[in-house]
């Protein structure tokens, strides 16, 4: 891998690699500062750590960014490293597609799909966060990475580790969808199925990270991992022509995506890369696991954990680590949150597919169905320009929709049989 992969194709390769370091950390709760390290917890108050950026660093303008290679690293000044990353150079910069038919169905002025269902290489937005986490692992000379996962992160960690030549230990709930299990196993990681929910896996991984010296991307590398999510906000702004939509709808599991969308939108606004107000952030969860939605509806500052029961396995986190900050991002931007039933989310998958040609996994069905609810409740308005964040590919969760689709007719290889079907469909 050479540095040129991160620059415009015409850029020359440097003769020697530039120094590469992770940024120092600061506690978002008490403000204590720490040297760069594979730790996500403040030793003073146990609050979450985040990277500390130099406020005086030189930032690129629109034109400079636009001439860089089409990956998330085109926004590297807002990612938590000094120097040129060496791993996972080509994730991000997924399509932003206008969807007029879905806009009409929702009754909004314009609507776009931010389509991470085609993210490289593992078809979910987790490629973004693993891209930053694995470079943090490299900065700390860690030979083993891993994660606690509901499926998409397992796919991404396994794939990115395979490419980088790192060992991977991946922990998942024992009853994940087969496509997500196979989509991880194929990269030959150490894959471990844990009896229990994601929250049980989560707790185990907190202890594993504390005991084995590995880089668990969403545990002790979490401060660097989460920053990758901001790039979805950066891309939306750039792909809309350096302007913001009026509303964004995004799925919520641990709450990190909405939190980081908010942060990314503020960072680009602060940098003068777009004008106008921040978009309203709307969060989406399944009714069977909606602790963040209920916190937004209830108000206050204490999240009540839930025991998940939904087919939207990628969102089934009953004790979301970033739930409070996600709820705060939603209320600060005058957004709202909606929970949808499993029946509605399946209908959401089909509505998205039939109106946009995009096949999303269950989380995308939740996002689409939540947008329908938000529009019906007047939270999305006729003059709104809306972006839906679709974070994973439908081929990973085929079981969720199998029973809802009509069975295709079987016919003899005769023109008359087709004619009969055409007649029937015209009636």
């Amino acid at each position, binding site marked *: 891998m050479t540095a040129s992969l991160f620059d415009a194709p015409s850029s020359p390769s440097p003769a020697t690699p530039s120094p590469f370091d992770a940024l120092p950390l600061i506690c978002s709760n008490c403000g204590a500062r720490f040297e760069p390290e594979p730790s996500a917890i403040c030793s003073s*108050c*146990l609050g979450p750590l985040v990277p500390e950026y130099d406020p005086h660093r030189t930032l690129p303008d629109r034109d400079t960014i636009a001439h860089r290679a089409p990956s998330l690293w085109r926004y590297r000044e807002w990612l938590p490293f000094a120097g040129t990353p060496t791993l996972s150079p080509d994730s991000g910069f997924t399509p932003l597609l206008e969807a007029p038919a879905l806009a009409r169905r929702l009754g909004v002025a314009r609507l776009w799909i931010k389509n991470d269902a085609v993210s490289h290489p593992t078809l979910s937005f987790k490629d973004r966060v693993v891209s930053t986490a694995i470079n943090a692992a490299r900065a700390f000379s860690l030979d083993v990475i891993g994660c606690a996962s*509901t499926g998409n992160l397992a796919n991404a960690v396994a794939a990115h580790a395979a490419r980088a030549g790192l060992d991977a230990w991946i922990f998942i709930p024992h009853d994940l969808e087969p496509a997500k299990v196979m989509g991880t196993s194929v990269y030959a990681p150490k894959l471990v199925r844990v009896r229990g929910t994601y*929250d049980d896996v989560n*707790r185990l991984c*907190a202890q594993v990270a504390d005991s084995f010296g590995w880089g668990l991307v969403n545990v002790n590398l979490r401060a660097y991992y989460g920053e990758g999510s901001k790039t979805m906000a950066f891309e939306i702004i750039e792909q809309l022509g350096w302007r913001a939509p009026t509303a964004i709808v995004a799925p919520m*599991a641990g*709450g990190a995506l909405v939190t980081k969308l908010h942060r990314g939108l503020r960072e680009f606004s602060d940098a003068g890369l777009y004008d106008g107000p921040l978009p309203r952030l709307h969060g989406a969860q399944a009714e069977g696991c909606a602790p963040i939605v209920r916190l937004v509806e209830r108000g206050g500052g204490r999240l009540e*954990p839930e025991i998940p029961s939904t087919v939207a396995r990628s969102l089934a*986190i009953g004790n979301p680590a970033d739930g409070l900050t996600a709820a705060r991002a939603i209320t600060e931007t005058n957004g709202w949150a909606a929970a949808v039933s499993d029946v509605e989310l399946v209908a959401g998958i089909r509505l998205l597919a039939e109106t946009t040609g995009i096949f999303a996994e269950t989380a995308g069905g939740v996002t689409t169905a939540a947008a329908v609810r938000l529009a019906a409740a007047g939270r999305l308005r006729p003059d709104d320009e809306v972006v839906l964040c679709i974070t994973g590919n439908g081929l990973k969760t085929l079981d969720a929709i199998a029973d809802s689709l009509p069975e295709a007719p079987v016919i003899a290889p005769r023109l008359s049989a087709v004619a009969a079907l055409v007649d029937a469909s015209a009636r």
Partner: protein
Amino acid sequence: MPLTISLPSILARLADGNRALDASGATVAEAVADVTRRFPSLAPRLVDEHGEPYPFVTYYLNDEDIRFAGGFGATVRDGDELTIVSAVAGG
């Protein structure tokens, strides 16, 4: 009632390096109070100024999140294990 409290390494240094502490009490609150009496510097890390757990720290009593089991008022028995972990991001 004797039970074991398992600490993350970041807190163990405040308990003479012990990752596992014996504690006594009839409830989680009493057990936590027992160890904070012996290791006072642990107190502000385990509970906030109202004596409640922080939102980003989770207590598990024998694998169960105590928020599903009565919170700090949950009853503990001989041989129970109380595990303290910080919150983890989504997956």
